């Protein structure tokens, strides 16, 4: 595929699955500018890899892989700093201010903090689980076995329970 001529198929698939972009960027970046950079980096990588997509898995599964791979590398490159999302900036960007738990229901704010505190790979696993992806698909995205995924999700649930307990 020529870099100058992205296909309609590419644009159509990205449009259909754009939610993945924002979910992943939102989970890995608190700062709105970093988040915008991350969304762009993911899009660039999806576009560059598009000719390798062979249809052996669903496009959403493949896009999840790219989005998570780029997000993890982005975070590791320390481009994404853990700067809190300011309320004014959030309003300007039209985004909900998730750094401030007040606008969120208590449970969701707690979950957001829990996700923020996870290492990048655990974060990827939890993100896929919360998106209601089957264990087999999560295993496919991450490169684990479905059994291993189930075990790790069980441990994450346990950790969440343990962290929630003292706050009650």
């Amino acid at each position, binding site marked *: 595929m020529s*870099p*100058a001529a*992205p296909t309609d198929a590419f*644009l159509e698939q*990205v449009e259909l699955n*754009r*939610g993945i972009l*924002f*979910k992943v960027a*939102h989970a890995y970046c608190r700062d709105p500018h970093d988040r*915008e950079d991350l*969304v*762009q*980096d993911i*899009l*660039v*990588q999806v*576009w*560059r*890899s598009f000719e*390798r*997509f062979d249809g052996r898995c669903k496009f959403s599964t*493949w896009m999840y*892989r*790219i989005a*998570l*791979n*780029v997000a*993890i*590398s982005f975070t*590791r490159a320390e481009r994404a700093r853990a700067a809190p999302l300011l309320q004014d900036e959030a309003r300007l960007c*039209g*985004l*909900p201010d998730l750094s401030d738990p007040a606008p*969120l*229901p208590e*449970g*969701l704010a*707690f*979950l957001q903090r829990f996700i923020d505190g996870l*290492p*990048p*790979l*655990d974060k*990827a696993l939890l993100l896929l*689980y*919360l*998106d*209601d992806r089957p264990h087999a698909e999560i295993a*496919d*995205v*991450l*490169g*684990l076995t479905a059994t291993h995924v189930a075990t790790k999700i069980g*441990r*994450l*649930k346990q950790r*969440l*329970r343990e962290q*929630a307990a003292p706050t009650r």
Partner: protein
Amino acid sequence: MELDDLKSAWQSLNASLARQNELNLALLQERRLEKARHLLRPLAWGQGLQMAAGALLALASATFWVRHRAVPHLLVTGLLLHAYGILLILFGARVQALIGRLDFGGPVLELQRRLAELRRFYGRGGLWIGLPWWVLWLPLVEMAFVGLFGADLYLNAGATFLPLNLAVGSLGWIATLVLAGWARRHPSLGPKFLRVLEGSSLTRAQRLLDELESFERE
């Protein structure tokens, strides 16, 4: 608090986020091509330049040692630089090959491991490329003097010039390797030194490999 109880609320939040960002996609699409070219350029240039430098050095030194093959110390000078030029080309080619193996559409753990291996190779390769300069400047200066001015520096600089500089360079090379080994064995004291010596890429690569191993083991 149960994770499954929060699932639907989390999905609603994300659906709302995607709706609010709908318009941004058009802007991103416009900027995509420019960004893609921007991202590719430094990587392609860096590797290309290094391989070109290696080819140039190999060519110049080959010409040099062929012309002076009857003079043993000039033959050795040319051969050393020729070998280093080939090392530069091989290093660049290997990095290109490792980059070519990266598939961001592949499973996350596999891609992250390959990225870490690339960083580790790049960091260690940097040592192989950089440390020889403790002594390699000697043949380079000799080749430049003979090639540009027709003067043999080794013969004209005095009897101690070559052995003294070789000894100092070799000691520096060995001391750097010993210090690197010490820094690796003392994680509490060594990281800053290693970062200076190997660049942060190797440190980050090792940390990533450790994380991957721990994630798979848990």
